[in-house]
Structures are given as structure tokens and as C-alpha cells.
């Protein structure tokens, strides 16, 4: 999912071969994530917000909404809502890695363990980070919680494929422009 929005540009940009990893500042990562969010209409529709970035870890928040309930008798959110939030968080965390430059990275697979149920009426937070990267694959882990990050309601693990590098200078310029809009 992450950075697929740049696919049109990638066709015209050269792969920056031999380019060393450029460490992005927290502010640059935040700008990137916010610009990317604008191109993901469904996440915006659900009201998914960026909470913050701590090192390589990205945190997002999904506000509780009755439309997202899975068990109407209990008022609890649908398990699939966690799939959306975790796919979003793990996918976007790929641009927060300090080990590899941002790339066009479609999702290869995603596995979610449901450890508990989100209590009715509570917002859900999700955190994720790339824990291992190779030349072509990013291995990402994350979790979701309501009250405390020590009590996760779901854990997720997945892999994202680096199909093309992106021109980092162009990307940051776009993020800068996007942030000013």
C-alpha cells in the first residue's frame, strides 16, 4: 500500500543506485506520512489520524464509530476494522525506517492475532515499525491497543515488497509542498 501513490512518478525517475540511507528527521517522516494519508481516501473516511512518530515507530489512531461495529449486541468493533487499521499502520511505518529509504512497497502478506476485544466506545491506537529489512523485503510488526500499550488487543506481522526506489529528494520536496497546502 505504502507509497503506491508515487507509482506514476516512479516510471519517470531513475533508481538511485548506490545511494546510502538518508536518515529522515522526525518532522520529515511526519510530513511524508501526512502527505501519503491524503492519497488514501478510505483511511481518511474512517478518520484515521497520525498520533506521532517515535524513532522508527509510527502511531495511528482510529476513533470509535458505531458504523464500524461488528457485534451489534455487544457494541464492539468488527475484527476487520483492526485489519484496516493495522494494514494502514504497518504499511505506512515503512517510510519511518532508518535502515532503508522510502520505496514503493505493496503489501505481500499480513497476519493478525486477536488477543482481546476493544471495549465499546473506545478509540483504537496502533503502532508499527520495520524490524528487519533486506534489499527487497521489509518485515514489519505492530500492535493495537485501547487503554494501554501494555495491553494489546491485537498483534500483527507482515511483509512488504520493495518494488522500486523513489527519488528521496523529490519525495521530500513533494512532502514539503504538501505540508504547506
Amino acid at each position, binding site marked *: 500500500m505504502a507509497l503506491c501513490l*508515487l507509482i506514476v512518478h516512479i516510471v519517470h525517475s531513475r533508481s538511485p543506485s548506490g545511494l546510502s540511507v538518508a536518515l529522515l528527521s522526525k518532522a520529515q517522516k511526519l510530513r511524508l506520512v501526512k502527505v501519503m494519508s491524503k492519497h488514501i*481516501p478510505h*483511511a481518511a473516511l474512517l478518520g484515521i489520524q497520525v498520533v506521532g512518530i517515535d524513532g522508527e515507530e509510527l502511531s495511528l489512531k482510529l476513533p470509535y464509530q458505531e*458504523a464500524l461495529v*461488528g457485534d*451489534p449486541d455487544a457494541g464492539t468493533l468488527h475484527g*476487520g476494522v483492526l*485489519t484496516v487499521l*493495522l494494514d494502514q499502520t504497518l504499511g505506512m511505518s515503512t517510510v519511518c525506517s532508518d535502515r532503508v529509504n522510502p520505496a514503493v512497497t505493496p503489501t*505481500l502478506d499480513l497476519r493478525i492475532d486477536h488477543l482481546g476485544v476493544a471495549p465499546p466506545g473506545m478509540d483504537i491506537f496502533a503502532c508499527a515499525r520495520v524490524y528487519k529489512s533486506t534489499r527487497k523485503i521489509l518485515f514489519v510488526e505492530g500492535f493495537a491497543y485501547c487503554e494501554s500499550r501494555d495491553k494489546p488487543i491485537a498483534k500483527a506481522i507482515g511483509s512488504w515488497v520493495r518494488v522500486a526506489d523513489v527519488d528521496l529528494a523529490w519525495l521530500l520536496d513533494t512532502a514539503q509542498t504538501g505540508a504547506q497546502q
Partner: protein
Amino acid sequence: MTLVDILQQQPSADTLQLWLRKVPYAAFLGIKAELRDGEILFILPEDKKLVGNSSLPALHGGVVGAFMEQAAAFHLIAKMRKPALPKIINFSLDYLRPARLCATYAQCTLTRQGRLIANVTITAWQEDRAQPNAIARTHFLLPETD
């Protein structure tokens, strides 16, 4: 009527619609179901609000997963002797190709139903069933009454 009451009705084309309408998130996604040769075909109609990548455009991968998870749960419930909401334990999803902005279909197989656990596999496709967009596998914890 509660969802559990509605689930007691014999699965048919009409009751499947009732089930789907009773689950707010399934209604929000617009999921529909039909009976085809005795098996349930789940349908996620084309809807711009489900787009996760506006430049392709492609459906949000998480939405495709959520659709498949809902399909698995109702496929399992339809096969229960005493229908009740199963609890999802885990969900494992392989993305095979991006889901374009068009109708998506899903069919499930109840691979194993034990006393405690059910294993359901799901295939989702768009134009051609032989070229699935995603496959998934999920485990449910069964209610003790079934």
C-alpha cells in the same frame, strides 16, 4: 431482534441479507451475499469510498481483508447446528494482486470444524476466479453451545 436471534433463521438468500444488514460494519462496506449452487457467494460491490490508493485506483488492502473475514464468519455460522457469533483468533492474509475499483467476490471453505476451533479458508477475486486477488486463512473459537 438481536443478531443472535437473526442467526437462528435457516440460511437462505433472504436471511443472509438480514445478517449482513444487522452487522453495522458489513452494511457500511456494502457486503452482499447470494446462494450459488448451494454455496454462499459474498460480494463487495464497487464503491469509491473503499479506495486505499487513489492513483491506481485500488481498494484499501485492509478493506479486502475485512470483507474476507466477514465472509469467513458468516460462512461458518451458516454451517453451525446452533448458530452463534464465533470469536476470531487469528487471520492470515496473502495479497496476490491489487484489487481494482470494481466488484470483489469471496467464497470460503470450512476446512475443519472441531469441537473448539474452526479453520476457514477464503479466496477473493474480481474478474476471474482463477486469478484471485487475495487468499486468507482464519481460525475461530466456537461458542461452547454449538
